[in-house]
């Protein structure tokens, strides 16, 4: 494929963030933090009225966007900042743009947006094209 600086990467969309996936991830992460599992705890902590997606799931969405955009590549580095929460039931979209190309190394910036809301994650990555 022919990549150019400034190219927008195809977005990766999750139509509805799943509370069932949060239960799975509590096991994957060996971290039963109740804000991901029990809406009553979320309410009691004043954090909203729906369970909150684990931060690493949001990173995984952005990785999925990068892997789909560069099917022959692999992620070499990735830095992401957590700006806000993603709640069960929300639609989120990961987007990215190519910022530099150095041989087989492509640099990108990316973000994860909540539909109708704000950017909840953002960061940079380099991908090595095989």
């Amino acid at each position: 494929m022919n990549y150019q600086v400034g190219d927008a990467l195809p977005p990766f969309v999750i139509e509805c963030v799943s509370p069932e996936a949060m239960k799975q991830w509590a096991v994957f992460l060996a971290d039963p933090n109740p804000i991901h599992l029990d809406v009553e705890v979320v309410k009691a902590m004043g954090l909203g009225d729906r369970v909150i997606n684990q931060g690493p799931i949001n990173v995984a969405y952005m990785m999925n966007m990068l892997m789909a955009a560069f099917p022959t590549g692999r992620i070499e580095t990735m830095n992401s900042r957590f700006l806000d929460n993603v709640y069960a039931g929300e639609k989120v979209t990961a987007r990215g743009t190519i910022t530099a190309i150095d041989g087989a190394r492509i640099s990108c910036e990316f973000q994860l947006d909540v539909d109708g809301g704000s950017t909840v994650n953002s960061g940079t990555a380099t991908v090595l094209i095989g």
Partner: protein
Amino acid sequence: MDEFPPAPNVAGVSLDGSKVFIISAAENAALCRSTGIEPAADGSAHPIYYYIATQVAMGKTVAGVCETCEFDVADGPMMGSSGVSFRGPLMVGESYKVTGEILSLVRKQSRKLGVMDVLTYRLRLHPADGGDAILETDNVWVLPRKELAA
């Protein structure tokens, strides 16, 4: 910041783990599908295992890391940022172990969160049978210090 006691001095605390972490094909498949994709056909695991494997197999639990920082995990640690540098792909069926350490714990005041400690720690994932790390990750957590709120 003079009105607050300093953050606990925890820089250098080891997070070396003794567990062996194996990425199972079944779990990798379930994880991939939970994020909206199918698992790779070439035996590579989802790269988010950089975070999962290092967290699960480091030498302290999340609650234990918080306890080291004199912070109750029930008070709600928040992820600030996460960075990773891979030297190769993570593979399904491979065995890994973790080394690492706390880099810093810095007390700050934020308009949004009040007094908070910013924890930075570094973890490396190695082949379980030895050798150079296949990845290194730096994670930053924010620990809100409600007890120090004005």
